[in-house]
């Protein structure tokens, strides 16, 4: 298995290289630069800045320079957050985003699985319709509506939880962002589990274990659920990569110092290195999580195991 992991990581390197190359040049096609502010800088100042950040050199040189720095683990300085390197920004923000994302994901998995299973077991009952209805609702209401509403109810009206802010990572501050992130995921997981569970409960091999008098608990937990969780595992790879790298909406509305906000801010400010840094980090997450998904899938389903 270790050799499989190493091979997978090795094949990921060319993928990352292509992503980095395309992003690098694509971004430079966009007009403007990091120092084109509303009030133009003096020509001399501009020239100095460009020299310091190597922006005066030909594009291919800048590209090679970026690659060689990247190989040394240096993501470069941020153009806009002048006192910080891109590495510093991620070191500060990424743990926050991962914490929120991972909590939301765990919550979504547990609640979604339970809800989906109950709905499947009571198919076409009131509970089933309720779960499906709520799930549809959860998927359709965007987080930029959920977040302020939650904040308004629990933060402002009831005053149970802080309406926003990070509070240095105090638990009450985390609850609303986590719930906002988790709600749509709960809905998706519940729907996936419900569908797959209904199919599993009707399958021949579940009929077999029922015919052999195994208690419902074993039939559902051991035989049906393992089959039902497979589509969720496939969904989880890209979903985890997206959640763990932060959400711009949630971070902006609740004022959380994660990395999600960098996606948009950096692109708008033409903060070249920060954009590239985000691309690199997200790509690595996607590659790693897809691999984890494949490993978990193979662990759950012997039919797709690699020898």
């Amino acid at each position, binding site marked *: 298995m270790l050799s*499989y992991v190493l*091979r997978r990581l090795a094949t990921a390197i060319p993928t990352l290289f292509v992503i980095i190359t395309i992003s690098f040049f694509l971004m430079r096609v966009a007009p403007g630069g990091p120092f084109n502010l509303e009030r133009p800088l003096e020509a001399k100042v501009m020239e100095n800045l460009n020299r310091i950040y190597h922006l005066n050199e030909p594009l291919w040189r800048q590209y090679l320079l970026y690659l060689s720095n990247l190989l040394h683990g240096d993501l470069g300085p941020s153009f806009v957050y002048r006192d910080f390197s891109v590495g510093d920004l991620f070191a500060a923000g990424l743990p926050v985003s991962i914490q929120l994302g991972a909590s939301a994901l765990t919550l979504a998995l547990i609640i979604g699985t339970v809800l989906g299973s109950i709905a499947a077991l009571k*198919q076409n009952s009131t509970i089933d319709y309720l779960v499906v209805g709520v799930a549809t609702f959860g998927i359709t209401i965007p987080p930029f509506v959920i977040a302020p509403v939650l904040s308004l109810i629990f933060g402002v009206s009831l005053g149970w939880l802080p309406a926003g802010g990070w509070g240095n990572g105090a638990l009450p501050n985390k609850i609303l962002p986590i719930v906002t992130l988790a709600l749509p995921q709960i809905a998706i997981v519940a729907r996936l589990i419900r569908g797959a569970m209904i199919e599993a409960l009707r*399958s*021949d*091999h*579940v*009929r*077999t*274990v*029922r*015919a*052999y*008098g*195994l*208690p*419902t608990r*074993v039939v559902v937990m051991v*035989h049906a659920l*393992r*089959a039902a969780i497979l589509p969720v595992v496939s969904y989880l790879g890209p979903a985890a990569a997206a959640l763990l790298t932060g959400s711009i909406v949630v971070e902006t509305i609740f004022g959380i110092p994660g990395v999600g906000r960098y996606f948009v801010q950096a692109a708008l400010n033409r903060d070249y290195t920060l954009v590239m840094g985000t691309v690199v980090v997200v790509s690595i997450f996607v590659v790693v999580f897809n691999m984890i998904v494949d490993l978990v899938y193979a662990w*759950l*389903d*012997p*039919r797709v195991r*690699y*020898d």
Partner: protein
Amino acid sequence: MSTTENVLSVRDLKVSFKLADGQVDAVRGVNFDVASGETVAIVGESGSGKSQTVMSLMGLLASNGRASGEALYRGEDLLRLSPRKLNRIRGDKITMIFQEPMSSLDPLYRIGRQIAEPMIHHGGLSPKAARAKALELLKLVRIPNAERRLDAYPHEMSGGQRQRVMIAMALANDPDILIADEPTTALDVTIQAEILRLLKDLQNRLGMAIVFITHDLGIVRRFADRVYVMRAGEVVEQGAVSEIFVRPQHPYTKMLLAAEPEGHKEPVPDTAPVLLQGRGVSVSFKIKEGFFGKNSFELKAVDNLSLTLRQGQTIGIVGESGSGKSTLGRALLRLISSRGEIIFEGQDLTGADLRRDRPLRRQLQIVFQDPYGSLSPRLTVGQIITEGLLVHEPELSRKERDRRAVEALKEVQLDPAMRNRYPHEFSGGQRQRIAIARAMILKPKVLVLDEPTSALDRSVQKEIVDLLRKLQREHNLSYLFISHDLSVVRALADTVIVMKEGKVVEEGLTEDVFARPQKDYTKELMAAAFMSQEARREAEREAASAKEAEAS
């Protein structure tokens, strides 16, 4: 029989299903008894309610199904037990094996664990003890390398082996009754015979009663003590096997007994023009194993095979699954690529691109095995059968196409008024007629029939065989008839090719091969396939000698 105690007695069992458009009564008041240690067969065609009868006893009806009546197992009514109490009986004292060996085991767990699970729950065995017992059981059902197979996953085993695993599971808790729901239908004939022998042997050693559900009366004779014949949810005839085979009372039983397709075909003269010829045809598939296909090897599905099909001739190609017979049929039509020469009316097809060479393509048509899968559910029957005309005769007007559709449907003896309906409204036999009409509308010269009767009940099979005969007579068609079903081949083909692992085992005139099979494999196939006819003859002989003994 009356001296032994009944372990199961079913009275006035009714099963119905609630559907959106009303109620379907699948079982309408069935009575039967099972004495301890005996084998009872319930026989009927699809839709007779035989499976639902036993499903209701095991509490396995679909959620819209309801059962009423009484099913007493040692004084307890199975239909009225709470789920918890029922769970104490099913899997322990009453066990079941199913028709679908490929999907009846959980693909995600090792078979050792699956065999052990009921023992742990019912017998209270420790996982370790259950595993040891599972190993014993695997040996009992004669699985080779039992120690290693204990840790295998279902997908690593063949259909026959999986059915053995199911039997092992069924025997684990020393049951009183083993219900076998068409346990051999999905298996090749030779494997079928092995499984039946195994079941019989185990019954002799362990003494459980067997309730055997089947559509095949042939199996019953060898296997069962008593038979119940079911039709449309009712038992139409019952009695001892020896009685029913010799003196069937109900017309339906008589029909089932006589349902083997009959007649044979006169071979065409050697002077008949050659239509399709294959010389040294080989098809191989690359099987990739390991990362980057390091251990890839070539599987020869068809290995250097030659045949000549003359006008009006039917060549029967027989073999078990994996013998390459379907692959050969597809290669001859150039639906898959192959090596060797394929010549149609003097023209070498090997180089021809049949996607472009339309006139050639329309001469060579195919009918598939699965009448449910091979018709698009979203097109009407009229659209399905005229689809080929759109390609081959695009100049036809809509009206003209419709006229041809009517003609084609009449030809396969379907009501042309049905052409605006969708495939799901038709039965299996009717669908197969539609598939034949779709091929016939193009007026082909060669028809490849890939197991066209295998998915059908015997009585329907017979009708399709008659239809194919009629079409061949009227249009001087040539058939390549691919089947694992020897009785159909015997009735239809003038020459026969027996295939195994891509190679020809034996070939010759149908009459010769069936009367005097030369190779062991062919003999084995025949013995397994003609159980029911043999059984009938045997029963008649026995009855005759009994009468003689009485007279003297």
